[in-house]
């Protein structure tokens, strides 16, 4: 196990063991550098927490990893093979699936219809509702997701239930890597527990490696094996969860704010 890889430094010790590896990823939007020489690795079956403030570059990195946009420079390796994602569909076909913040659920459709959205089971020309209903129910039960009914329109579910359905749907297609964008955003403790429980379950099964993107790290410390902190487009911390603490992360965040504040005051003078 490589415990820590200081930012911008050499290769991890066991590159074969990594399901995903990013080397020297940079992304510029015009003159703005959103990501600067980011190195990131994800071990097989690992849950990595990618944390940072708004605008730190988390979303940009997520969009690169799920094939939504290409990096300006840098290389991505999937199971040791260098890959260039052409599109979200392409990345998905390679086994990377993302659950976005908006969840990509259609409120007016039922849970099972959403579970099978755009991969419906059909006997032309009709969709096979009973098959999808049964499979959706089995799959959700297996994952311990509790919802009133697979026939319920998604709009009637709570935020936590919706998130759980979205995650369950992504797992449905057996991805190698699951990217979760702010899975606990705008969620109470009870609701959040549904998702944390689901993530722990996935981790326990070990079939999928997970990157959780969050700006509030209190949640994710609970389930992550390792934490990467991203600040100003750079990864400023890469530690096993056991070797770091909320205090250390807070200190880093506070230090950044203090620096920004001093910078601002200097400019005003």
């Amino acid at each position, binding site marked *: 196990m490589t415990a820590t890889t200081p930012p911008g430094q050499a290769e991890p010790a066991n590159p074969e063991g990594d399901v995903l590896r990013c080397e020297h990823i940079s992304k510029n939007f015009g003159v703005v550098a959103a990501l600067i020489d980011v190195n990131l690795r994800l071990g097989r079956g690992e849950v990595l927490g990618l944390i940072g403030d708004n605008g730190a570059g988390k979303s940009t990195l997520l969009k690169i990893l799920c094939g939504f946009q290409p990096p300006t420079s840098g290389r991505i390796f999937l199971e040791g093979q260098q890959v260039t994602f052409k599109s979200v569909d392409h990345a998905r076909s390679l086994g990377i699936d993302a659950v976005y913040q*908006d*969840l*990509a659920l*259609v*409120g*007016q459709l039922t849970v099972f*219809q959403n579970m099978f*959205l755009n991969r*419906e089971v059909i006997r032309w020309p*009709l969709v096979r509702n009973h098959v999808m209903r049964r499979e959706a129910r089995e799959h959700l039960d297996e994952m311990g997701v509790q919802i009133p009914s697979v026939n319920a329109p998604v709009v009637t579910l709570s935020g936590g239930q919706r998130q759980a359905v979205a995650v369950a749907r992504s797992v449905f297609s057996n991805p190698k890597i699951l990217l979760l964008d702010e899975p606990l955003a705008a969620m109470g403790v009870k609701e959040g527990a549904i998702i944390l429980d689901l993530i722990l379950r996935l981790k326990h099964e070990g079939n999928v490696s997970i990157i959780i993107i969050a700006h509030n790290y209190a949640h994710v410390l609970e389930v992550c094996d390792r934490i990467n902190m991203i600040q100003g487009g750079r990864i400023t911390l890469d530690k096993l969860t056991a070797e770091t603490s909320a205090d250390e992360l807070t200190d880093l965040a506070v230090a950044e704010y203090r620096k920004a504040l001093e910078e601002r005051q200097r400019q005003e003078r």
Partner: protein
Amino acid sequence: MLMRVLRVLGRQREATVFIIAVALFVYFLIDKGSNFTSKSNQVTLWSDFTTPIIIIALGEVFLLICGEIDLSVGFVVGFAPFLMHYLIDFYGFPGLLALFFALLFGVLVGWINGFFTVTIGVPSFITTLGTGFVLLGLIDTTSHDEPAAIPAQVMGIGKWLQYYAWAPIVWAVALAAVFHIVLTRTRWGLHTVSVGGNLLGAREAGIHVGRIKYGNFMLCGLLGALVGLQVMYYTDNIAPTTGSYTYMFYAVTAAVIGGTAMLGGVGTIVGAFFGAVVLGILQDGFPLIGVSADPLYIIFGGAILISMVANVQLARLRERGQR
């Protein structure tokens, strides 16, 4: 109790419209003085008044659900028969082929609407306002504002579309049944709901959003052309005045009364069907019981407003019921 009934009705919006349709029908039925019950009037009610509204409403429902609208379809109704007439009488096309091209023309207009809306990014309200006016201009220019006779070659087909008394309503019911299944039981229907319900989400799920919208515009155009041919047989000539906004307004009204939301994602074929029946009965029944047709639009307008208020209120009730 009342809340419960309201909640059930809210969930089953079609039931509300169905009840209204039946109530109106019974109301005119028990008015003995009129000849509402006569066969000729029933044919007029179902085949001549209600059918065009139903068929065009089918297209509008699909468009409204996926978040678009077609204001131009009434002018497809007007131009399709003229195109057929030109092809036969000026270019010597055989009758069937000309009919086919008239229908294809509807699809083409739909494609153009899709192109400006989806590919160029003009809101469909504006796009179809524009194409509607262009079509109106085309009708008036090419016909020199003169009606034309139906070419003899296509008279025979007319009985299948219109001349058999119940043919139109049979078409309407059959099409409505097919479209209901398409909307609720096929990928196309589910994806149409997805595009209107969560555009970004549908895109993220890999649904070809543009293709769905193009397809529904083309569908609406095709249905408009079909109605154009039916109306041609009904009026027994090809009239430039046939092309108007009226068909579209009635169809959208039917859809809205039937519970289709203008914002997309919500709507049913069954609801629009009975919405059209309500409009058809009102249109047919009022003159029969001696009420002038003039206040009809006041009633239509009132019906739209009431049903929209009901939509909003029932949606609120529904939310409260779930909390």
